[in-house]
């Protein structure tokens, strides 16, 4: 394998492998059924070599980075290497192998050229419903068996023919049969794309050349990462935070990270995090490793595609039985809540060592609201599930972004008011920025949003709002942001506040107001540019009272001055 390959050929093969992953991703996203895949990009694809190393990868969602190989490895460990046969496609979602939750179906296909195993094409996508006790997922599950269908690895296509009985079984375990079968079809088509294209590359360049190029490609990725880590001051960096609760008890759950930099190596130790919880905030070790890799990538090499040489300088320590090293039957539905925090904490821990890549914390979790009921016009059941945008953290040189979707939701778009009201018996009376919700500083965090739903027909609500106990923190003297809140019937005698809840009954005429948190500030508020404070007041992002109290500046809210004072001019430069 040590034949030197011309750098030109290496680069052509490197681009070709990335392109295969992109083509697989394009196939999956364009043909998926559920918005969770095509917009939240709650999916990822990987092209692996025959040793399960990543040749090319395209992750929709950062949190899915680099762990699809765990599935092909698990199959091979259980059934031996001879289990692979041309034309077969496998599916599985066992969370203690995949590391995620049951919604995430991993579909894999071995890639052959004649009888030679060249590698694997794999895809993972979040399915809308996999038959959990409540529609679309659970808030308060206490074991994995309440969370839906759990598949050990199984062949869904055999020798090129889709197995109807398996497809039926999987489809009928979902409340959305067509969605499940449709997404399965999209994932199989995605794997086929990889299985068609990889052999073309082998045939064009020859196996020996491709394999030698692969080794060089991996070595390049590793070299770049080691170079960067070597530039980070050696030391041990720690951070900790809590998630509000596990959804069952009211107890805070701590996530603790310890990051060690030693020369050109990085170690992330998660051992001190709390034990696995009764509620569904646990995850398998595979996914904890993946999340640690995401944090690593954000800091070390945010823009280049990952491959089998990536992450070689990184070791991750997970304690078996902890909430990020969970075993059967720990519930895992909200596995990403501690992982989102974990990623933020690694960035926080290293923020002083790698200031140019860091930012203050964002509003954090997905802030999901579920509304469901029976539509009065069609008498059909309806279900609306939607994460909510919030504020992101500021960094040296810039305010954080206002009203932006959280890290683990990819490129999800909010649902337009006009689509929401057309489909469901609700009215969105208000959707706008939440004044004063940001962390203050020389650069302020982004603001969160407020949404006000009017319920037009009796309905049921579940919600998962998080990070009220560790709201977005600031950096370098920047302030902490406001936490989230949900108010039912604000201003009425029956007003009440919630964050997490399952199946709360709502009546026609009830009002639900959700508020998301802001992002943390960066630097001391005293150092903030005075015009920026005026602009914020003028725009109503902060109130005049806050301008006075935090920034010591007296500004009238409505300027009647000439347009030249207007923030649009300032913003347009």
């Amino acid at each position, binding site marked *: 394998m040590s034949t030197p390959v011309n*750098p*030109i050929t290496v*680069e052509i093969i*490197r*681009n*070709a492998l990335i*392109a295969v992953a*992109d083509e697989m991703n*394009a*196939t999956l996203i*364009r043909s998926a*059924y*559920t918005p969770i895949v*095509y917009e939240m*990009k709650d999916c990822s694809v990987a092209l692996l070599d025959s040793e399960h190393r990543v040749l090319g990868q395209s*992750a*929709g969602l950062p949190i899915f980075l680099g762990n699809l190989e765990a599935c092909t490895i698990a199959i091979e460990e259980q059934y031996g290497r001879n289990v692979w046969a041309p034309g077969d496609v496998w599916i599985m979602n066992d969370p203690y192998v995949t590391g995620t939750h049951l919604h995430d179906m991993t579909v894999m296909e071995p890639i052959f050229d004649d009888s030679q195993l060249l590698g694997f094409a794999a895809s993972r996508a979040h399915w809308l419903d996999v038959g959990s006790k409540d529609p679309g997922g659970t808030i308060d599950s206490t074991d994995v068996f309440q969370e839906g269908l759990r598949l050990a690895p199984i062949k869904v296509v055999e020798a090129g023919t889709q197995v109807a009985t398996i497809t039926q079984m999987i489809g009928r375990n979902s409340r959305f049969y*067509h969605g499940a079968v*449709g997404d399965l*079809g*999209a994932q199989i088509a995605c794997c086929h*794309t990889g299985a068609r294209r990889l052999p073309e590359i082998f045939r064009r360049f020859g196996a020996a050349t491709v394999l030698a190029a692969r080794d*060089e490609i991996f070595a*390049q990725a590793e*070299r*770049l990462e080691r*170079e960067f880590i070597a530039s980070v001051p050696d030391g041990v960096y720690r951070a900790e935070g809590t998630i509000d609760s596990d959804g069952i008890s009211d107890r805070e759950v701590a996530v603790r990270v310890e990051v060690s930099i030693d020369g050109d190596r990085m170690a992330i130790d998660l051992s001190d995090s709390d034990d696995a919880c009764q509620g569904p905030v646990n995850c398998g070790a595979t996914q904890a490793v993946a999340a640690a890799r*995401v944090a690593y990538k*954000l800091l070390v090499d945010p823009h280049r595609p990952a491959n089998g040489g990536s992450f070689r300088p990184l070791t991750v320590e997970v304690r078996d039985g902890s909430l990020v090293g969970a075993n059967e039957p720990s519930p895992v539905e909200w596995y990403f809540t501690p992982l989102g925090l974990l990623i933020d904490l690694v960035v926080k821990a290293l923020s002083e060592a790698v200031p140019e*890549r*860091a*930012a203050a914390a964002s509003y954090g979790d997905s802030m999901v609201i579920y509304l469901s009921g029976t539509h009065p016009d069609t008498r059909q059941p309806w279900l609306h599930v939607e994460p909510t945008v919030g504020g992101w953290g500021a960094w040296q040189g*810039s305010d954080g*972004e*206002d*009203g*932006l979707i959280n*890290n683990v939701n*990819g*490129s999800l*778009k*909010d649902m337009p008011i*006009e*689509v929401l*009201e*057309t489909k469901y018996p609700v009215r969105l009376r*208000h*959707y*706008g*920025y939440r004044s004063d919700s940001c962390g203050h500083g020389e650069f302020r965090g982004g603001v969160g*949003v407020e949404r006000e739903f009017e319920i037009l027909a009796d309905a049921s609500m579940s919600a998962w709002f998080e990070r009220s106990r560790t709201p977005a923190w600031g950096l370098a003297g920047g302030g902490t942001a406001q936490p989230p809140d949900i108010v039912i019937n604000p201003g009425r005698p029956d007003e009440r506040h919630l964050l997490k809840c399952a199946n709360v009954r709502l009546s026609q005429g009830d009002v639900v107001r959700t508020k998301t948190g802001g992002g943390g500030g960066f630097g001391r508020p005293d150092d903030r540019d005075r015009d920026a404070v005026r602009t914020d007041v*003028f*725009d*109503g992002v902060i109130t005049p009272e806050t301008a006075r109290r935090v920034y010591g500046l007296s500004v009238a809210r409505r300027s009647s001055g*000439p*347009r030249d004072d*207007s*923030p*649009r001019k300032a*913003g347009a430069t």
Partner: protein
Amino acid sequence: MSRYRVAMDIGGTFTDAVAYDETSGQYSAGKASTTPGELSVGVRRAMHSVVEDLSTVSFAVHGTTQGLNAFLQRRGENVLLIASAGAGDVYQIARGNRTEMYEVQYRKPRPLLSRSDTVEVSGRLDPRGREIEPLSVEDVVAAARRYRDREYTSIAVALLFSYECPDHELQVLEVLRSELGPDVPISLSHRLAREWREYERTSTTVLDAYTAPIVRTYLEELSEGLQADGMSVPLHIMQSSGGIITARSARDHTVQTLLSGPVGGAMGGVSLARLTGQVNLICIDMGGTSFDVSLIVDGEADVSTEASLEGFPLLMPVVNIHTIGAGGGSVAYREAGGLRVGPRSARASPGPACYGRGGTEPTVTDANVALGRVDPATFAGGEFTLDVDAAHRSLAALGGELGLGSAEMAQGIVDVVNAKMAQAIRTLTVEKGIEPRDFALVAFGGAGPMHGVFLAEELGIDQMIVPRFPGAFSAWGMLETQLRRDSARGFPFPHATADLAALQRVFDEMGAEVRSQIEAEGVGSDSVVLHHSIDARYIGQEYTLTIPVGMLSVVGVSGWREQIKAVFDAAHHSRFGHSNAEAPIEFTIARTTGFGDLGRAAPSRLDVRPPAGPVARRPVRFGGEALDTPLIPRDRLAPSTQMDGPVVISEATATTVIPPGWHLEVDDYGILSAFRRNPGKQGGASS
């Protein structure tokens, strides 16, 4: 006597013009320097470069970049946005999505107006367009006061559910007119995009308000100028949809002309498809810093129902142009011991090393120069002298770092960039469910014809076409387009239960609307053709497919419901590789497009008398070997000429490279086609 059809297209450096002489059946091309301060000056000069006496012009069409430039440079109007109470921040939130996955320091595109430029007005409709709360006239009057007090110059009005019922927006218009008078520019969302999704509609409306007054002023200036020059026919303007409208109508639908310039190339593809009979084309426009790809499928441009401009959505039909970050200026460099080419670009400054402007890193252009594929005499229209030594020096330096000789380095850079461009094209075709091997490749722009054959080879394509005037292909493409008007209405109903009589009424209404618009442009009713289509998807999906429902409405025909489902399933299968006959579908938006035929050129056989004289030869490197290659000026290639590669063909705006293994043919109209001698083979042959 009127005899010339003329098209003018504004580029960064030159404004191109192409004229077709209806008497002789011949084309001619000309150009003038683009005049950034006052674009109409350059446009008029360009026109004069091909037609002396403008009274002989029978048809004139123009692709304008005025609105796009105002947007790109953020020199637009000061816009006041009027939105529904409770939804004023929709434009700022912009659906809250991110486009970069691993970036904690992410910012959305800066909106064209800020929160304080937004006024909310009370008044609300429900999803069926029924009034829940009447419009507050008081709020609108307050908005008008705000407009006056704060020196705004344009107003965008986008209210919730106005696509279902425009009454509230029309009331706003009425109040604003009575408060502010008839001259204030006001853009109403339902007139620009009668479709659901308030952010996208608002964004479209704001873009219109931001650019329309500037474009209107420009169009008036230009029309008056051309009239003063003696032109007596109306000026037509290219729309983003690939169809044209008169400059007069463009004033009311300005936003539709925003991407007027870039779509010309794709429409050139459409004309070329008609002329050559090769109906499936991948068109590549490769310039110094950019590489644009567009697709012609079955002779038609690939048109989307929405587009995005620097992250701002536009709800309107737009010919898809995909920009890929590779071009002549892509820089080659060493990283982690390996070679990289692009996406970093040397841009105009310092530019490639061979420009002699201080660039030291080798670019794709430098590699082409070193390989002998660029004719220094005609490069960039002879604008400046190539520094060939500088190109060699930059290649030798990088080659030294990577253990490669200078010639090998040059070959390698070209191979890598060709592979990358080909892969980008392939990913695009996968998204569309298209197999590139079924296509011919059309190469234009300054650098396109130099790389075209090699991209074709990578993609398994057997034919590359270089049109006449490859530097002015966009202008050529505009010459033969049709008038086009589009209309859309929300029709959000499940397929199984949708009221087909209601759908028929929607189509009839839209049909009457676009027909009258086109007839108002001076086209006889016999020359108007209507296309109806409907967007549909499996219930639960977000992306829709636009399904044609026939040349005339056939909604009433029995069996239509079953038929449209089968057509949808088939379209889904061909696009995505799978479909589900059992799964129910739903409709979202009904669309009607009207085309008005303006006649077209019937070109004669190219009438050239090739100049005589010896053919120059020079060594050009192919596959690591320097081959003695003829360098032929394009004007010596008469119709029916045939020759084998290697051959390099040079003309003022482009250089065409035909390697060994490819065969050149010139058709009756002077269009070059290179054919692979062993068809059906992919890759392998080193460029």
